[in-house]
Every structure is written in C-alpha cells, then in structure tokens.
C-alpha cells in the first residue's frame, strides 16, 4: 500500500502566495482556472489578462504570459491580443466593479462579437480592492462604504444581472453562473469554467462564467460565515444556472 497524490496545486499556478484576505474565495477560482489550463494542456499558449481589483495581481499567480488591463478594459485588451494572435488562448479575470460597472461596454461588445476569449467574472457584490464600496451587484439594503444607509434602489439602482443580460447577445457560446462556497459547488464551477474555455478553443465564440464569490473583509463576516451568507443572500438574487451552452457535452 502507498499514498498517491490525488489533489495538489496545479502547474498553471506560480508559487507566489495569493494576496487575498484569509478565506476570500477569489483564490478558489484562481485554482480552478489553473486546473482547467492544466487539464486542457494549454498553459503554454495562454495569456492571462488581469483586471484592476483585488485580483490585480493575477498576472503574478497564473504561470502564463500575462498582462494587467486598465480597470474594466480586460475584454478589449484580450480582443487585441486575440486578433493579433488567434492561435493563443486568452482569458480575462474580472470583478464586478471591473466588469459590470466601468467595463460594461467592453464586456457587452466582446460577448456580442462572439470574441473567442474566455471571461471569469467574480461577483462578490462589492468593490473589494478599494475598500468596500457599492458594486453594481450589491444587494438592495446592503450597507457598503458608499451606501451607508443601505443600497436604495431609488437612488442607487438595482443589483445588475450580468449573465441574464449577456445571454441576450448572440456571440455567446457558453455562459453560466456558479458559486464556490461548498466543495460540491467548487467542482461544478470547474466544469463550467472548462466549458467556457472550450467555447474559445473550439472557435465557437465567447465563453463566460459568473462566479458568486465571498468578500469576508468587506462583508464584515468571518470566512466561514461568508460562505453561508452567500447562499442565503446572493443566490436568491442571482440564481445559478447555465444560460447558454453551444459547446455540447465533452466526451
């Protein structure tokens, strides 16, 4: 009898320690992306396009060629790379401030063009990096540093449903909303991420996964409580599901 490794840090991650807060699920999603790159064997032809947000250091974590886009513009940067080098695999990793606020036009049009890129969209209902301001995805009533009295739809608008919106563009080849707050969900999330990459690799179109994620620091919760809060508050507003799937089942 011997011990065999069944799970370990994927090759597509560098050794650099994540800069995320303790218990922040950004890290889980990083690992999932790296596992998918490993499994698809595409690390050496992948370019990571990091955002501005807590994941601004993503370029240090993924063991691929990488750049950091201006806040919100990762889909445009990825488009530039992909048009120049269609043989490369290009993905963006973006937060909800980055993608759903300042970067709204870029993500909508990348999706609508069916740009052959993949986007990992971290919805944590908050601006993490800048200290807990309202995100477009912040829930109604939620207190943030810029909604000190709670988000009020009359002044601040409504939580934005990115996936529901993006599904209305024709260039999308794969689109799903997942969460990463239980081991089971983590494994499901990985399947979705893999498909979002396959949408690109197979040349079908734009692939995106919206990942419901925690921000213990700015939610003011301990990491374990944050996992639970996600189920109780985020999921009812942002139902999980596969919105578009033109990739089909993997054999």
């Amino acid at each position, binding site marked *: 009898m011997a011990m065999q490794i069944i799970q370990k840090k994927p090759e597509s991650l*560098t050794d650099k320690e994540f800069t995320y807060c303790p218990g922040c699920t950004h890290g889980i999603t990083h690992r999932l992306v790296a596992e998918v790159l490993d499994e698809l064997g595409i*690390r*050496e*032809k*992948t*370019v990571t*396009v990091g955002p501005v947000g807590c994941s*601004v250091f993503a*370029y*240090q974590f993924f*063991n*691929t*060629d*990488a*750049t*950091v*886009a*201006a806040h919100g*513009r990762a889909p*445009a*940067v*990825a*488009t*530039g*790379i*992909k*048009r*120049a*080098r269609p043989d*490369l695999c290009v993905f963006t990793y973006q937060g909800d401030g980055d993608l759903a606020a300042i970067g709204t*036009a*870029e993500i*909508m*049009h990348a999706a609508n063009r069916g740009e052959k890129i993949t986007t990992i969209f971290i919805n944590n209902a908050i601006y993490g990096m800048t200290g807990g301001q309202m995100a477009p995805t912040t829930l109604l009533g939620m207190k943030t540093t810029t909604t000190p009295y709670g988000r009020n739809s009359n002044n601040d608008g409504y939580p934005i449903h990115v996936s529901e919106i993006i599904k209305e563009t024709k260039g999308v080849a794969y689109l799903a909303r997942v969460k990463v707050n239980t081991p089971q969900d983590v494994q499901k999330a990985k399947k979705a991420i893999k498909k979002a990459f396959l949408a690109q690799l197979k040349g079908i179109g734009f692939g995106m996964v919206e990942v419901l994620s925690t921000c213990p620091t700015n939610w003011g919760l301990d990491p374990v409580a944050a996992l639970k809060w996600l189920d109780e508050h985020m999921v009812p507003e942002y139902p999980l599901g596969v919105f578009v799937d033109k990739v089909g089942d993997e054999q």
Partner: protein
Amino acid sequence: MAERVLVKGTEAIGEAAVRAGCRLFFGYPITPQNELPEYMSKRMPEVGGSFLQTESEVATINMVYGAACTGRRVMTSTSSPGFSLMQEGVSYMAGAELPAVLVNVVRGGPGLGDIQPAQGDYWQATKGGGHGDYKLIVLAPSTLQEAVDLIGLAFDLADEYRNPVIVLADGVIGQIMEPVTFPEFRDPDTLPKHDSWALQGAVGREKHVVTSFDIDPVVLEKMNFELVDKFERIESKEKRWEEYKLDDADVVITSFGTIGRISKSVVEKAREEGIKVGLFRPITLWPFPYERLEEIVKGKKLVLDVEMNMGQMLEDVKLAVKDNAPIAFYKRMGGMVPTPEEILNALKMELGR
C-alpha cells in the same frame, strides 16, 4: 523608381502603414479621418491583416494595448474627442512600454467643436494628455509625402524605443489628395519580433509579463527613472525639423504641420516684398528641437509663431528663444485655416510695415 500616385491623406497614411508591416488596425469612426478605417477595412483582409471597428475609442486604445502586447505592429486613428477618450489607455501603454502608432487627425475644439482642421491638440500630444510621467514621440507631417514617410518612421521609432508614437495631423492632411511615392513593402522578417518581452505563450521559457504598475513605490520609482532615461535618449537622438531659407533671414516663422506648408508661401511672398523671412518647422513636436531653434533665433529681428490654436507650441518656442529675440504670435482657431496673405499681413504689422 517608385511611381507617384494621387491619393487621399487618410489612404496615404493607411497604405504607408500597410507597407510598414502593420497588419492590425482598430478604430472607431470620427470625422475627419473616417476614410482611414474605411480604407483599412478593405485593405486589411487583402493583406491577411485584421481590421476591427470597435465599440468606442476607450475600447480601441485598450485593444491596441492588447495587440501591442504581442509585439506586432498595430495602429489606430481618431480625431480630437476620440483621442481624449484614449488618454488613460495611452498612459498605460507608455507605462508598459508598448510600441504602437496613434494617428490624431485634429479638428476644431474644445468639446464637440467642429470637424475642420485645427492644431489645438498640441499640448495634449506633447505634454501628456494622460496622467503620470510619460512622453509620446509626436510627428507632424505637413504634406502627404511627408505623412507617408513619417508613418514608416513612426513604426520604427515605436519599436526601437518601445513607446507609442503619435502622428499629429489635421483635417487638411487627412482630407486632401496629393501625389505621393510609396515605399516598398517591408519584408515581415525584418520587423522586430520583441521576443524578449512580448506575450506569445510561455512555450519553453519563463512567463512574460507586461504591465504599467508596481504597488511598491520603490519599484515604481525605478520604473519611472528608467522611462526618464529612455526619454532623455530620445531627446538626444530623435529631434527632427526643417529649415527653410533661414540663412539670410531677419524674421523666423515657426509653425508645424499644415501651417508649416502654408508658411512657405508666406516666406516666398514676404521675400517678394523684400522682407527676409525664413521658416523653422519642427517635425518632431516631441522631442522639440529647442537647441537648434535657440541657435537660429539669435540676432533675429522677430520670431513669428503661427498656429491654428491659442498658442500651444508657442510655449516651446518661448522655452527655446528665451530673451534672444522678440516673439510674436498669430493664430486662427476653431477650424479656420489662415491664408498666406493674412499671415504676411500679420507679419508686416509686427514689423511696423
């Protein structure tokens, strides 16, 4: 011998870019440079390149950033308001040391302004319209032939220094037709590959990273200092200008781009009337040829700066001239192009004639 052909400015620029090996063009329509993306939309597929009409100038410049990350030659073109929207991206590109050629066909401003020729974006181009410490190499053609030649140069300088280069034109350069001679097509193998830093997939090598930031100010300062070194290198090597009939001149006209060409007629007309006028026309607006201008103006009766703006290059002229000669300024604005006659009149007024 290459043939002379009669082409439109925008097309001349487009074809010159293609011949310089540019195979990537991103752009958003805006008058008066629409014919350039239009030309590229036709031409790029012919040469196996890629043309994309973007959703905005903000997206454009970030696509250019992305394409430049791969080390390939890439260009965009816009006009004033569009260029303003690109400022964040331009600053990122300069910070990340990305080569690219950016064409700004300047129109009347500020704001929506109008769509006639103007030079009101001189400061934006030369002093950094975006945030932070950076410089763009700025080339200002005054004829279509020069535009064609400068486009080739722009790509070469961009690659050599890993820095964005602006070609600053205006509606006149963009819209006119003139005869030009195109250079040969660049052999793709002679183009710089940028293998040492470009993003091409980390096959059998350490990963490459392209970024304009470091969270640690100690490191960022080092990056800044390196940029400054580069800018000083460019300043010492890349100043370009034209001197026209300056040897015996009493009066020096300083002007760039379209006014530069118009000023030549002023020189002629003035000389017909016995006024010895010469022209100093900076071709690189940055780096600006301060030293040479300073040398030239010593002992002159007058320096007349003429621009289609409120006096933007004028500051650089003053920095060069200092107290060595009196400086006068003549301007038109809002898209009005001065005639040689009115400039001559202004000159005579200044001379008290």
